[in-house]
Every structure is written in C-alpha cells, then in structure tokens.
C-alpha cells in the first residue's frame, strides 16, 4: 500500500490539512474461537466541514473504526495492533484512554445506532443533556439546565420546557435520536461520528433525522463520519464515501463518482441490490454468497468467492487500493480488475 492517502492533494496547505487522518489502522479482537482481525490497514482522511460515509455490511468493521477513534473498543478483547489515528497533531492510537476521552465530546462526538439503549433509562433527559456542561465545563445547575433546554429546542423536540423532565422511555425513537444528537453537539465538537444513526428508525423519521444532521452541520461547520449499511441513506448527505469489506476499505472516492462508476465488484453489487436503482418490475440482483468469516478469510482478495470477475490472481494476491488507469485521481479501488469492472457498467 502506498503512503499517499485517498484524495490527498500533493500541495498540502495548512487550511487543507485533514482534521482527522487514520493511517494503516489495524484492530484485533480475541474471542474464544480465535483472534479476529476486525480492521486491516484502514486509511482515510476527514477534512473540516466535509461528510465521509463509511459503508458496508454488518460485521465489516465500520463500527470498529468509530470505537477505535473514541477509545471505546471493548476491553480487554479488542485492541489497536497497528497504525495511527492523527487528530490535531496527536496520535490517538498511541495515547492512553483517559487522554483520548479528554477530546471526546469537546472535539469529537458520537451518536449511536439504538437511541433507546444509548440513553440512561434512570435519569431525566435534562440531566443527561446537562451533564457535558456540568462535568466538562463546570457550569452551575441552572445554567446547564438552560443550555440543555436550548439544545432540546434546537433539535426540534416540541414542548421542550416540560419534556426536559421526562425519562428516555417516554420519547419516541426519532425523538430519542434527536436527544442523542443534541447531547453529542452540546460542546460544539469539530467532528461528529454517527454510527448507523437512522438504522433503528422508521423510514419517514430517517429522512428527518438526516436532514437535521445536515442542517446542524451547515450551521456549525463540523465534519462528519456517517457510518451506514444503507447506500441510499448517505447519497444525499455525504460528499465522499469509503466502502468496507472484511475489515478493509475496498473503494473510496466522491459519492457521485462511485455511485455512477463503481470500480470494485462489491460496490457494484451493493448498488445493484438497492431497490430504487431497479426499474419497477425488474429483478433485484443480490450479491451471491454470504459475508466472510473474519476468523477464516479466503486467500487473496477476501471478496473473491462471491465475485463474478474473480481470477486466479484474485485468489492469490491481496489487491491494494489504487486509482484505475486512465481514471481521475481521488477515486480508488482495491481490485486487480477495476478497469474491467468499470467498462462492464
């Protein structure tokens, strides 16, 4: 793998420097059945104000990226065994957990998939919202409460003055996720990691929550990593996307480029299995086979058993991320046969 990052322009002026740069990140989980490598040499950059989508099937390592950045890897099973997570001149992968947590909330914040289990059931939402202000900024009770109310209103909870005294189970799923968003944005972080923020919600609510996120992003200028398994969800929100398979990034580039011209057979397969992409009455084309077992990956490219293009080379050699020949820079795929995949479309 080359040292150049996907989409990194050679002229790196200070304003153009990435906010977060993940380089060669490798994470392992030890389980009773053996050691699973959840992430393998994952590299990407996030610049201020932009939205990077990280896409893939469940179990491909998307959430592990978020956990690694926030020092939330389950201990002692999970550990970072290689690579760097550079933020503000510091390598978070090498820092001690409490040092990373200092940045959590104020610099980098996170929202989770299931807003019900993510909110503490025994405390009023007001108290949970006020916590960042009180514990991190040392505000008084009254002042923090006022700030919390302001946040609740901002994320569109109706009747916020009374609802602030309610408990999480008294809110609807969409409202809970709004509360989570309010809590994450309380201390005006520069980067928000949203781990499947809409997966647990109804389709109509999904759109509302995403547009709320987009609005807030425009308002604050924060960067966002949007983790999802749903290509449709991120299409309108994200500028760039990284597709993951079996712990590796297999394709990365501008969302539009990738959706129109997938250079990896897996991306192509994912796009073809979205219902809206198929004309009504047409048949969906599912990806054959099942997701790989991280404890027992096939040799060569991990996707080769499910890949219609696979050759002997694919079964022997792991492909590195590269820009397909005669293709503009910034769009890369980890496939030996990208050129063929592109023309096939």
């Amino acid at each position, binding site marked *: 793998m080359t040292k150049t990052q996907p989409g990194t322009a050679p002229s790196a002026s200070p304003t153009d420097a990435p906010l977060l740069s993940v380089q060669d990140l490798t994470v392992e989980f030890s389980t009773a059945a053996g050691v699973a490598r959840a992430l393998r040499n994952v590299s990407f950059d996030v610049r201020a104000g932009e939205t990077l989508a990280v896409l893939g099937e469940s179990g491909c390592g998307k959430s592990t990226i978020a956990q690694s950045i*926030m*020092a*939330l890897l*389950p201990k002692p099973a999970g550990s970072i065994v290689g690579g760097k997570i550079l933020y503000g001149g510091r390598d978070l992968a090498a820092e001690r957990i*409490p040092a990373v*947590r*200092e*940045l*959590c*909330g*104020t610099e980098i*914040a*996170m929202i*989770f998939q*299931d807003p019900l*289990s*993510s*909110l*503490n*059931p*025994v*405390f009023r939402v007001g108290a949970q919202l006020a*916590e*960042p202000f009180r*514990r*991190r900024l040392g505000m008084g009770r009254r002042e923090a409460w006022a700030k919390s109310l302001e946040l609740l209103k901002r994320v569109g909870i109706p009747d916020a003055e009374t609802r602030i005294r309610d*408990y999480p*189970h*008294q809110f609807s799923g969409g409202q809970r996720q709004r509360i*989570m968003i309010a*809590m*994450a944005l309380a*201390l005006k972080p520069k980067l928000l990691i949203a781990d499947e923020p809409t997966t647990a919600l109804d389709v109509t609510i999904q759109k509302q929550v995403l547009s709320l996120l987009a609005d807030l992003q425009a308002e604050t200028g924060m960067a966002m990593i949007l983790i999802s398994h749903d290509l449709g969800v991120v299409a309108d929100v994200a500028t760039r996307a990284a597709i993951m398979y079996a712990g590796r990034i297999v394709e990365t580039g501008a969302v539009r480029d990738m959706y129109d011209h997938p250079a990896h057979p897996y991306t192509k397969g994912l796009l073809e299995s979205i219902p809206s992409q198929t004309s009504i009455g047409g048949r969906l084309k599912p990806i054959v086979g099942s997701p790989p077992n991280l404890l027992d990956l096939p040799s060569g490219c991990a996707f080769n058993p499910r890949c219609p293009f696979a050759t002997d080379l694919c079964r022997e050699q792991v492909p590195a991320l590269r820009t397909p020949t005669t293709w503009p820079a910034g769009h890369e795929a980890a496939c030996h046969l990208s050129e063929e995949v592109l023309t096939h479309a």
Partner: protein
Amino acid sequence: MLGYVIRRLVLAVFVLWGVATAVFAIVRLVPADPALLIAGSDASPEQLATLREKMGLDESIIVQYGKFLGGAMTGDFGDSFQQRVPAMDLIAQVLPNTALLAVLACALALVLSFPLGLLASLRVNGLVDRIVTTGSLFTQALPNFWIGVVLLLVFSRKLKWLPSVGLDSPKNLILPTIVLALPFVSVLTRMIRNGLLEVMGEGYIQTARAKGLLERTVIFPHAIRNAAIPVVTIVGLQFGTLLGGAAVTETVFTFPGIGRLLVLSLQGRDYNVAQACVLVIAAVFVLINLVVDLTYGFLDPRVRLAK
C-alpha cells in the same frame, strides 16, 4: 404506579393470610392439650374444662380460626402460657433488639459489598475478583451457628476482647452482626459484581464515555444507579434469610431478640408466643418487601411511570 402499588398490597395481604393460616393449622397439630400445659398436670378436670372454655378451645375449629385471624389483625395473640402476660408484650420487649441487629448487619453488608463488588468488576479475574469469588464460595458454606460459636471461642473465651452473651453493652452487638452479615455480604458482592459487569456493556455506558466523562463518573452514577436496581430486590429477599438466621444466631449469643424468644417459647411449648413471633416476623418481612418493591419503582422510572 397506583395499579402497581395496589397489586403489591394485595399480594402482601395474601401472603400474610397464607402464613397465618399455615401457622394456625400447624399449631392445631400439637398433640398436647394447651389447657393442660397452662394449668399443670395436677389440675382437676373441672379446672381444665373452665380453662378450655376461657381459651375458646371448646369451640368449633372454624370459630377458633375466625377468632385467631381477628386477634392476629389487632395484634392480640392471647397470653403467654408460661409468663401469663400478653404474647405481644413479650415481643415488644425484644423486637427492637432484633431490629437493631438486622439493620446493623444490613448496613455492614452493604458497606462491605459495594466496594468489593465494584473492585471485582473493574478487573475480572484480577486479584480482588478472585478473592471475592473464592471468599463468597467459602462464606456460603459456613453454617452461621458454627461460625458464631467459633467467633465466640476465639474473641470472647480465648482473647477475651468481647463479651459473649446477652446485651449489656454495644460490644455485645459486634459478633452477632458479623455472623448475620457474612452470608449477606457474599451474596450481595457477587450480585453487585455481576450486575455491574452486565451494565458496563450497555449502550448508555458507551454514550457516557463518548461524552468524555471521567471513568469515575461513568461508574458513579451512570452504572451504579442501574446496577443497584436488582440489588435492592435481593436486599429485601435476603432480609428474610437474615430474620430466619436471627433465630439461630440469637440462640448462639443468648441475644434477647425475637428469634431467641421464638426458640425458647417453642422449647417451652408456649404456642401463643410462638405463633405471635412467627407472624410478627412474617409481617416485618412482608412489609420490608413491600417497601423494596416500592423503592424499585422509585429507582426505575420505567416501573414507576408504567400505566
């Protein structure tokens, strides 16, 4: 919440009625004639007959049962056969002692088990965890009367640090409290350890960490408050075991409590007092579990606010 309280109250009354009926039925099985026990073996048949009449023993079993239940509700269990005073008076003398002992034992158990359980859960298979796990296995295998006797032997007979019997000074409370608290500590510690381990895997703990809170704040209050909910239930249930254990422990230390009163009255075949003791203990136990159930509602808003 109101429906919840009413359901609990109904169950409590049902349990008390069940215990009262069981106690009544059991005591009717006594082969000995209570009148004979009171009057003594040299009483004339006429004396016995009048005494039977006075005690209501000549009435049908249904009437006796009705009177017994009526009396139980007003706290009237009849007179002690031996001491010729109302059974409730005897209980009133000793109940505060047992209550003091039980509360001390509970407090000691809570004070010890929270830090132990917390430390054990922070490092699974660490030193504290191993000590706690092995220790609780051992303490649960210790018969409370035997450990009482051993402590008595070591601390009051051999070392002469503590008094052995009665309740003349606060020092008398030390050994019984320890004996009663021991099994409680091991159950609670394991409970808190396992509860915390479970809670620490929950989503809201991740959220709390993602907010950048100190690990100390993540545990207290976020984790502890949730882990405490099942612990409260166990405290209530264990309180029953504690009251049962008091009968044995109080006998070992000749401690003037309700448990010893029960044992003495049974040995003396003083069934009015024994009945009263059992029912009073049952009532206290049911009451505590009622309070626990209601506390549960207070600790867990999902229960409190359920319709």
